[in-house]
């Protein structure tokens, strides 16, 4: 019904939006949101291809695992962001530049 390439396009666009958010946002939480977008795009892709795999259900299984992992990622990231905020008193990644050569 819906061609596969459309799904792929949508997921690609979402991925790029998420990429943009990661690269140019001045807020750590926005970066986290960008990462979530990228993950969501990947999950959409998995699911779109998973339609053609009834026996193993590989696509959907991996989509589930990916969702779980995304959740874990967010949890840990928020804890880290909180710690960073406690130390640096702001969450602007451009000011956190101590880890350089």
């Amino acid at each position, binding site marked *: 019904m819906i061609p596969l390439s459309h799904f792929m396009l949508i997921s690609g666009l979402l991925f790029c939006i998420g990429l943009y958010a*990661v*690269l140019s946002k001045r807020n750590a939480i926005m970066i986290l949101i960008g990462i979530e977008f990228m993950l969501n795009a990947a999950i959409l892709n998995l699911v779109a291809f998973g339609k053609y795999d009834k026996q193993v259900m590989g696509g959907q299984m991996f989509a589930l695992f990916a969702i779980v992992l995304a959740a874990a990622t967010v949890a840990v990231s928020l804890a880290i962001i909180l710690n960073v905020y406690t130390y640096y008193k702001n969450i602007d*990644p451009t000011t956190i530049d101590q880890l350089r050569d």
Partner: protein
Amino acid sequence: MEALISEHIILISLLVAVMPLLTFFGSLIFRGNVIRSGSFAIFYIGLSLLLSVVVFVQVWNGPSIHEQFHWFTIGSWELRIGVLLNNLSVLMMLLVSGIALLVNIYSTKYMQGDPYIRRYWAYLGLFCFSMLGMVIVDNLLLVYMFWELVGFSSYLLIGFWFTRSTAVRANKKAFIMNRLGDLGFLIGIMIIFSQFQTLDITRLFGNEGLVEAAVVSGGSWIGSAGSMPAEWLTIAGIVFFLAAVAKSAQFPLHTWLPDAMEGPTSVSSLIHAATMVAAGVFLIARVYPLFDDTVLLVIASIGAFTAFMAATIALTQNDIKRILAFSTISQLGFMMLAMGVGASGSALFHLVTHAFFKCLLFLAAGAILHEMAHLKEKSGKDFDPQDIRNMGGLRKYMPVTFITMAIGSLALVALPLTSGYLSKDAILIQSFEWAEGVGGWHRLIPVSAMITSWLTAFYISRLIFKVFFGEFRLSALTSGLHVHEAPAAMKYVLVILSVFCLFPVFSLNPLLFEDAWILQGFPQVESMTRINAFHTVVPAAVNLISIALICLCYKWYAVRQSAPDFSRSVLFKFSQDQWHLDRFYSSVLVSGTTAFAGFLYWIDRYIVDGIVNSAGVLGRWLASGSRWIDRYVVDGLVNFSGYLAGIVGNFVRHFQTGRLQHYLVTMLIIILTLFIYKYYTAAI
């Protein structure tokens, strides 16, 4: 005894020459009264005289004695030197040693009290050695050596009182002018050597000598060893004559002789009257066969001209020694004239007689000066003791001096009964005979010689009358003090010399010169025919007019002091300033040379040194250029590479921002680049 002498004649002649050299060394090395009083010098020169008498007796009019030994060899040419004793040698030897002894005796009194008397005896000894050496050697090279040594001794003696600047200038002038003559001598030696390959006098100038054998044909002078263009024969003659011109003070190299009077008067008498100036005549006599007709004419002309010129200058001089100096130049001109017309025997005869009477005149003048200097000291007034205008009436106070000086003057004027008459008349008559033989303009030469004799009479009698007659012109100044007679040593020398001025020493016949024994010893020139007319007319004319001039002088200067005053006329000034020759030499030659030297100094200082300095400046400039290159280019490159590394490093450093998103961007850029590259290469 006879055999002993004849065996060792050469050794004896060598001793004659060397004795005065012992005086030279001894006077410089030893001290003591023996030296200072002159006994040392007199002993040796007396010994020289004695031995030269012995040699003279042995050799005169006999065969010439010649001995040589080998000195050194250059390549295949060996130089043999030795002693040659012929008439000319022994005559000169006797003359020189005799006059030297008399002057030495005179000097004991004249130079008494001088603080540098040892040097004086030494230099006199050196001079006698060099003069005696010159007359006995047989090689032109050795004659040249002794010639220069004579010039050097003259330099030392003229500048004896070297603290006086005039003496120093005079001896420098004498030495430099003599050197000009030496140049001629050297050129002559070179020409003769290249033509004949030998410098031996007997081989060159003896009978059947190489010079006589050489012929001039087809424009070239063909000698034994080669040939050269014929002009060189004339040139050789001219340059030898040039040597004689310088040494015997002929025109134009005569200006040193009047200035040489700065030396002591005894020195002037020995060197510049009797002996050294005669060395020029001696040289002409030695190389006589070399001269051809052109050269002989030149010799005669210059001799005649010099004689005339010097006589005209002597007319107006006021310094007693200068009058006598110009008189010497004039008489030497006579000798040269005689040589030029071919009467070499007469020239040598006149040399001998001139030596005696000129030496006498100088020594007498020295005595007068000695006394005048004493008078100046005693009276404490300042006047020139040599000026004849300050003298007068000295006949009363110095009778012996007066008589001897008068005899010498008569010999100079050449009145009969004197030796001078014989020799000068020989010259005059023979020059007239020569002019008759040649004819034309050449007659001017003997005529000018005759006029010069008259002028001689005038100036010497002016001298005598002004000095000895009348009243003492300075009696007011010296308030009654007057001069005394000369001391004994000086007086007796004057007397001995005056004896030699009279005829008996030279010829038993007072009127005929052919009987003179000196002339017998020298060959006469056959080309001159004897013209009897001259033998009576010439002496008569000369002597009568001379006597007339003497009487005129007497009237003007002795009796009434009524000489007409010519001092404002042009001719008088011309004569008094020595025909402006000295001034001309000084302003043109001396100034020209010093200006040239100054110009060369300027070139050396600014151009040569300038080039050297500019080379240094160039080197410095190049060095600064290379320093600039080193500092800005080389170091610049090195610094630039460091700067470049800094720039690149600084640029790259900024990639490490520590900002997360920058790292992500960089990483993604690289991934994208890879994707695009892969895509495009795959697409193409």
